[in-house]
């Protein structure tokens, strides 16, 4: 029986997938040359006024609805003051007094079964820039590309009690937010990162222990290691009565596998929040609320159930598809087009994934339309295009937006039922390879396959395999 329990609350920052920044029209795209996506507003020059990006509010509301939150119908932006060179105005515009979403829940699954994690609030805010240290000249340079990129911060209640639960919670958030297209949630690009608030108390105690916070964690494995280290450190301090356990912000060094207290100077301070007078309160009327509500996707597990029960997919295939909203959308569209769910799933899970892997693309970037995929699968299933040629067409579809039928016609990939032509080709192949004919006649089945392959190649694959087999046997047997 363990003596202590860990109490963990998370603050998860997620960059929202908007085209432009939250208060100016600069691109919010990841990457780019340093200071390429900047303007006087996001560089903190005086005189520019913030204009709220409505799409960011849409996505903030969407996130809240996916996490069962109450949406505040009047939501405001506030200023949080602190000095740091990557914060050009020396204040961050965030939501302090009336965040867009409050009081939600997320259900996680672990080995111990399902558990509800309460969400305290979700607020929108702007991201900060990045400091780059130039060793050569020993100077620090500021890159404002990420400044004012819209974020949501999802604040949980301290309902998590282990690294396993934290991972399950983060994966669940990631899945829901990706599904609702709120964010790509790419931890490696920093578009999802979290602050871990942790305390330890004796089992059965209702009083919370001393809390420490580890900021800006951006990998699941590092989070697991940090939680395990910090839990052990807390227990050590409690047992030895050490005065080293104080409420503070700590930095996790994943290489050394240790957490360090940050200088108080970096963390202490009064943020002097107050409402931003340049941003009028945002009123979310019924029409706006209903529009967002109607745009919500089915939850992944609802989709899975439907795929298995109504469309006859295996559990495994359904699981593969619900890893990504793009896959699901493509699957559903293609199935609606051709009515062959099982085949669509196969093409997506094996053929499309193969091409994506080869191109080193993520599933989110799946470039083909479900409609075109459905058309292609119908062509193959109806025997109009051979399956090898179908894969050629699929590869072409990844390169450009083409209609499978038109492409097949233009490139001579349509199966021909011209039996005279087939007979002529078979006759020539048989005549040119008497040895294989003899082998087959003396009982070597493999020899027939060789002849069949040669004929298929001659016919460029445009032949119904059944027809070819019949003609071939007729020709050999004279």
């Amino acid at each position, binding site marked *: 029986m363990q003596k202590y329990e860990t109490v963990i609350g998370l603050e998860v920052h997620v960059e929202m997938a908007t085209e432009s920044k939250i208060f100016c029209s600069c691109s919010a795209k990841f990457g780019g040359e340093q200071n390429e996506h900047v303007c*006087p507003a996001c*560089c*903190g*020059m*005086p*005189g*520019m*006024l*913030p*204009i*709220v990006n409505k799409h960011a509010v849409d996505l903030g509301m969407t996130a809240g609805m996916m996490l069962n939150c109450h949406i505040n119908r009047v939501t405001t932006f506030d*200023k949080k*003051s602190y*000095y740091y*060179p990557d914060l*050009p*105005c*020396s*204040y961050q515009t965030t939501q302090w007094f009336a965040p867009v979403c409050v009081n939600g829940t997320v259900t996680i699954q672990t080995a111990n079964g399902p558990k509800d994690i309460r969400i305290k609030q979700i607020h929108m805010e702007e991201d900060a820039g990045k400091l780059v240290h130039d060793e050569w000249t020993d100077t*620090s340079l*500021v890159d404002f590309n990420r400044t004012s990129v819209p974020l949501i911060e999802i604040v949980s209640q301290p309902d998590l009690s282990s690294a396993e639960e934290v991972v399950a919670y983060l994966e669940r958030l990631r899945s829901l937010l990706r599904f609702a297209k709120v964010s790509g949630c790419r931890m490696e690009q920093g578009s999802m990162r979290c602050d871990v608030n942790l305390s330890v108390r004796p089992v059965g105690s209702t009083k919370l222990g001393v809390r420490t916070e580890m900021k800006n964690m951006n990998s699941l494995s590092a989070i697991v290691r940090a939680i395990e280290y910090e839990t052990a450190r807390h227990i050590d301090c409690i047992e030895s009565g050490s005065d080293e356990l104080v409420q503070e912000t700590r930095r996790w060094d994943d290489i050394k596998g240790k957490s360090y207290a940050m200088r108080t100077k970096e963390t202490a301070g*009064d943020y*002097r*929040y*107050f409402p931003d*007078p*340049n*941003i*009028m309160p945002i009123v979310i009327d019924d029409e706006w609320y209903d529009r967002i509500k109607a745009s919500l996707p089915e939850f992944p597990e609802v989709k899975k159930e439907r795929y298995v029960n109504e469309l006859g997919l295996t559990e495994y295939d359904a699981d593969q598809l619900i890893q990504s909203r793009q896959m699901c959308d493509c699957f559903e569209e293609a199935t609606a087009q051709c009515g062959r769910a099982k085949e669509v799933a196969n093409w997506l899970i094996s053929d499309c994934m193969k091409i994506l892997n080869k191109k080193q693309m993520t599933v989110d970037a799946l470039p083909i339309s479900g409609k075109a995929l459905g058309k292609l699968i119908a062509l193959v299933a109806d025997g109009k295009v051979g399956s090898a040629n179908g894969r050629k067409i699929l590869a072409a579809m990844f390169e450009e937006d083409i209609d499978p039928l038109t492409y097949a016609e233009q490139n001579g990939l349509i199966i021909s039922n011209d039996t005279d032509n087939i007979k002529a080709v078979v006759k020539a192949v048989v005549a040119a390879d008497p040895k294989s004919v003899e082998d087959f006649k003396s009982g070597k089945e493999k020899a027939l396959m060789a002849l069949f392959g040669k004929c298929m190649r001659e016919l460029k694959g445009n032949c119904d395999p059944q027809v070819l087999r019949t003609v071939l046997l007729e020709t050999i047997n004279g």
Partner: protein
Amino acid sequence: MKLMINEGSAGEKRVALDDLILTKDLPTTAGSKMLDGYVSLFEAEVATRLQKAGYTIGGKANVGEFAIDLLGETSYFGACAKEDGTLVYAANELLEKGEVCAALQMDVNGAPRRAAALAGQYYVKPTYGTVSRFGTIPVACSGETVGVAATTAETCRQVLAAVAGYDEKDGTSLPQSMYTQPKDIKKVAILADITAAADADTQAKVAAFQAFLESKGIACEKVEVECMSAAKTAWNALMAAELCNNVSRYDGVKYGYRTPNYTNIDELYTGSRTEAFGDVLKTMILFGSDVLSTNNYEKMYDKSLRIRRVVAEAFADLFTKYDCVLLPACAKQRYTVEDVKADQYLACQEALFTAPASITGLPAVIAGGVQLVGPAFSESSMLDVAQCYGKEGK
């Protein structure tokens, strides 16, 4: 005495801009060493509209550091004063000398109103949200507006018409559909308690204007509204809080003054700000910082917001019975260099007269050395009265 910080073009319809209104070709300094030589990458919406309407930017009028002082005395480029020590505001002196036909001024704490009243000129502070603040150096965004000073009410009206109207680049800009039709002014309330706080000469100005109004058949009644004087304290607190936040961007990192003496980021911040900001500004920053601190937020910032609502309700109540109110714009008829030496924060006291309109965003008009404050969108009716005064009042 430096009236113009940077000279613009010569031309027929020359307008001076307070040195807080950004232009692309001339530097904009906010009267501060911090922004000495700062040239903006973009220009203020009002500057664009002004030029579209055929006016010329005559140059940048000297202002006090971030326009929060009495009459520009805290400018890094020096105070403007006559030989006898009388303080003048640069924009009004340029008008007096006929160098410009009008001036666009930032009304943060009422300095342009005070100055126009002292100079016997005309000034209109429009309804908050009717003139774009895009491209004006922010100081106290919740109440500041761009106003127009001129030697006639008619010019004020024309220049205001050129720059006013909805601007999508300003989130507080009011769409035209929200404008209401102003009523003619037939009944005026004189704020007796605030008037009583001014000296005899100033009270005489109010009495003279009252006589003019009555001669035009406009009824005047004295009223006492207790909460009006609280607007001063509340606006000083809100203004300082917003100022503190707005000037925090001047940190020596990106643009503006940077101290040559630093070895780390903290020294860069404190050195740059210590060396570039003046004493009055520093005090106001500290005051604002205190107002917003966690300990004081409730009792200072939040309370000021509540006072703002109370004052707005008091005005709304007055406007059910009266078409506008009449009050002085300042306590005396002359301020000197000695006065502001004796009390650097005199502007905070003088806010008694100007804060009611600043904190509520209501329009105000200066004519005959006094101030009219009316309901939202009533500036044209008040300018009618001012214009009539210009023709017949003197």
